[in-house]
């Protein structure tokens, strides 16, 4: 596979667990040696360069805090190893602690921090060495849902502020779409598709990508997003297909309608509360279903899984990280 990551971008490696995302990240970092292929940053081949000379910032899934050092000393580690003058280290660490909002916790030990605070400390520690690339392995995996949401927004803001090329690994498609400006979908060691989240969502290269990024249901032998389907009470819509309502499930704002169409096929439609209320649906009702204007079915055949895919489109700038 070839994956190019544009300078200053925030790219998410997205895919199911065990698909090789973390391994790819560790190969970029130099923590693992690839059997074949090369890793380049800014056009420089780093494949044989040891981890400590690559100038990458790596945040581990469980943050890997130095348990015997305070927050301040954790953040200072990379600078102290580089033998920077004490005053310079202090200034830089103070800056970073302020950036990640941990100034008040500078003298605590990692065991005295919450998960989110540890995550921010790990980020500050990685950023201290002014890495050329920041790599985050499942950055929010070990946090509870509430903190996760906060940290996503915060990471997004942090990235726009410091603008370091960032690659993160996640198996959560919602997280990837929210945080990243580019997605690289990885499955079973293969790169399935690369592009902007909205593009991939609307134009999935294959069935796997379509299903992984969001809900999908089958209409007339093609896959559609259930929220791209429209229900009608009468047959007036052109191309609409008749169906019977099996069940209506209210999920707050969203209403899920399970249908059965001719040929005993099942189908489901995602409606918002308002449109569901207008339709007055109940099990057994006859409805007509048609794709809305924006519905896009994937085009299997144009991209077979496993085909090497090129990274950025021509509009994107330089390509500092490349794995091939």
């Amino acid at each position, binding site marked *: 596979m070839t994956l190019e990551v544009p300078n200053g971008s925030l790219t998410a490696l997205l895919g199911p667990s065990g698909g090789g995302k973390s391994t790819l990240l560790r190969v970029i970092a130099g923590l693992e040696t690839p059997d074949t292929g090369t890793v380049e940053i800014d056009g420089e081949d780093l494949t044989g360069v040891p981890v400590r000379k690559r100038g990458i910032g790596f945040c581990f899934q469980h943050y890997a805090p130095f348990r015997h050092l305070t927050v301040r000393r954790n953040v200072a580690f990379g600078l102290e190893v*580089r033998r920077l003058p004490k005053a310079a280290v202090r200034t830089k660490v103070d800056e970073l602690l302020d950036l990640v909002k941990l100034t008040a916790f500078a003298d605590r030990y990692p*065991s005295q921090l919450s998960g989110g*605070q540890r995550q921010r400390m790990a980020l500050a520690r990685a950023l201290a060495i002014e890495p050329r690339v920041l790599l985050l392995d499942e950055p929010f995996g070990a946090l509870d849902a509430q903190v996760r949401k906060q940290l996503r927004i915060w990471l997004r803001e942090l990235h726009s502020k410091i603008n370091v090329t960032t690659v993160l690994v996640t198996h959560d498609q919602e997280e990837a779409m929210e945080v990243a400006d580019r997605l690289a979908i990885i499955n079973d060691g293969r790169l399935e598709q690369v592009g902007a989240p909205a593009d991939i969502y609307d134009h999935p290269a294959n069935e796997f990508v379509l299903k992984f990024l969001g809900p999908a249901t089958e209409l007339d032998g093609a896959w559609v997003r259930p929220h791209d389907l429209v229900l009608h009470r009468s047959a007036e819509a052109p191309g609409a297909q008749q169906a019977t309502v099996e069940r209506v499930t209210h999920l707050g704002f969203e209403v899920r309608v399970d249908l059965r169409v001719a040929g005993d096929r099942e189908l489901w439609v995602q409606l918002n509360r308002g449109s569901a209320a207008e339709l007055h649906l109940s099990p057994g009702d006859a409805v007509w279903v048609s794709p809305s204007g924006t519905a896009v079915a994937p085009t299997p055949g144009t991209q077979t899984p496993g085909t090497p895919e090129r990274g950025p489109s021509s509009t994107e700038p330089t390509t500092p990280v490349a794995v091939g």
Partner: protein
Amino acid sequence: MNWPRLTLRTGALGYLAFLIVIPVGSVFYRAFQHGFATAWDAITTTDALHALWLTLLVVVIAVPLDTVFGVGVALILARHRFPGAWLLDALVDIPLALSPVVVGLSLVLVYGHTGWFGNWLAARGITIIFSVPGIVMASAVVALPYVVREVLPVLQEIGTDQEQAARTLGAGPLTVFRRITLPSIQRGLAYGMTLTTARVLGEFGAVAIVSGSIIGRTQTLTLFISSSIDNLDPIGAFTGAVVLGLIALGVLGLLGVVGPREGRTKWLSKSPESPSDSDPLSLSTG
């Protein structure tokens, strides 16, 4: 009245009293039975002082040897996968399973005058058996497992994440070891070294065989005590025992200083007031 608890306590204390407190206490009592001056005279004879000096010399050489070897083997076993690792792991335990007398005998067989390497060594003027090198070797062998057994589980528990993180931050192998690995294993290492020291101090069987117990030359404190008893010099034996006991107490005390104590090791304990993520993350970044 909580009878089961009281019974348990009395039982435990009684057991300790009969096995440790009373016998050790009586040694102290007998040593000073005829006054402090007599005891002082007994322990300041040339032979006694030499035995004390030799014992400390052996500790100073054998303990660092076992420490370096122990940490090295623990690192190899914890951080590398290789065929035969199980064999190395099992070999480390052999000194625990073997009687020290057997350890001593095996050393004599290999390094003694008639041993496999004996002639070769003798030709080069190197004497191991009935001499200090033999005593150090025997002591190092019997005390070999302790550092490995204390450090290995700690290494396995902390994993490699912190070491890898240090590498990404620019640390070379030595820096990683000195600044990350060593502080992480500090407690286990201190405990292992204490056990090693105690074992070396108290070793008798293996040392008795390899040293020949030559008075004033190859006699350690334990051998001195033994020969004092044989020579019907109970005061010498008891004061020797008291000195050995005091050194051991000193080593245990040293562990208290070197090893972690409350306050210095907040990072080791699970913090009881570990904060939650409730602190609102200020999103209005400034």
